[in-house]
């Protein structure tokens, strides 16, 4: 079973629909006991960083999620704001501490070119830097995925970087470190390419 974490800040239904379409048994839940029985956990997220991390803490989810991220080492997938929560810290709205699973901080996208608009909204091309398994089967010249964000994650260890995109400068698009995978873009909203990425994650053997 795939646990889709529902803490009030995610498009949980869209994600559930995509996982269901791919044949995965997914459950929308905020019950830590479900995290224990789940094979994998997805942390979605749409909204403001500070409110989201506060909700995770208030609901008592930080401890059980962190245990699975760092100790039981369950495969976990963060999406958009869910990805950013993996970081140590975000500069959004005055600054907030994150879950600290990945040595990274979250900062606003600062394009050098005034014609480049923030938030980045729309389809952009991926440059794959690592974790090739996550992108296998994507058409090489047409690997666009859907982004909608103003902030992105900057990893301290460049080995954690799985893909970037260009939006007036390099923007972190995906990361991968052991059992932890995350994308700034929305695979559940990226049509064929996104479904393929989700499928690749579902099929990847993290113990190998």
């Amino acid at each position: 079973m795939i646990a889709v974490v529902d803490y009030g800040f995610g498009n949980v239904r869209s994600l559930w629909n995509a996982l269901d379409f791919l044949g995965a048994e997914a459950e929308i839940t905020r019950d830590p006991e479900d995290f224990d029985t789940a094979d994998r956990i997805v942390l979605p997220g749409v909204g403001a960083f500070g409110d989201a991390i506060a909700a995770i803490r208030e609901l008592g989810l930080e401890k059980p999620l962190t245990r699975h991220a760092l100790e039981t080492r369950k495969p976990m997938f963060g999406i958009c704001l869910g990805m950013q929560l993996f970081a140590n810290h975000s500069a959004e709205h005055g600054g907030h501490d994150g879950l600290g699973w990945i040595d990274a901080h979250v900062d606003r996208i600062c394009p050098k070119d005034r014609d480049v608009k923030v938030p980045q909204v729309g389809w952009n091309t991926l440059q794959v830097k690592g974790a090739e398994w996550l992108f296998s089967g994507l058409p090489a010249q047409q690997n666009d995925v859907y982004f909608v964000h103003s902030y992105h994650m900057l990893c301290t260890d460049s080995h954690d970087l799985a893909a970037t995109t260009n939006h007036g400068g390099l923007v972190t698009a995906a990361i991968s470190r052991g059992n932890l995978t995350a994308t700034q873009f929305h695979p559940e909203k990226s049509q064929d390419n996104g479904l393929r990425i989700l499928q690749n994650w579902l099929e990847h053997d993290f113990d190998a």
Partner: protein
Amino acid sequence: MLKKRIIPKFLVHGGRLIKGVRFTENWREAGNPVSTARVYDSYGVDEMIFVDIDATPNGGVVDGRIIERVSEEVFMPFTVGGGVTKLEQIEKLLAQGADKVCLTTAALRDPGFVTRAAQRFGDQCIVVNIDYSDTPEGRQVFAACGGEATKHTAFDWALRMEDAHAGEIMITSIDRDGSMSGYDLDLIHRLSERLEKPLIASSGAGSLDHCRQALDAGASAITISSMFIFSDHSPIKVRSYLSSNGLNVRSQTGSRS
């Protein structure tokens, strides 16, 4: 590089899609929202927008059942609008599968609502739409589906909504709606130069070249309604025309193709 977006915009009335001219005339039936969404998804359009035009006049909110059905069928981003005035309504629409919410009248009645919504759901989630019409006052902004004149002009209101933390600004010319006579290029040009946030140009598309003109004028995205519904121009044709004219557009097809 980020692609320019092509967005079909659908008006929902009584659970069906309709399309008229200048918000008031010549309404025509335009199909079932869910099956239409599926068709446009298969064309690989970049996003979709659904606006429930019954909602504000009837004091209701956009029909969430349609949103749920669409989100079950297509794995692509879509925006919904119509009668949204409360944070709880936005939360519900997002939970039902919408990615962004479009505010028109609510932003005019209470500009602070845009800011509160952006703080709660992130700027990127809030699209402010501006309905305007050419009057002796200039490009005058209207509330309530064109039924209520305001003191604002479109240009100034767009800048004010950007400051209020709208994630994107959509401009809809009531005079051009359904006319298929071309976008308001002058306003697109002036606004896209000033705005730091993406500008969505809406209303007026009638030919492939109209689409090119609006994107060349600086719009990040264009919406298309009548041209898709009542002419033989498909999104595939639009995309290939734009691409052969040097515009950076996506070339994939949709979910489960």
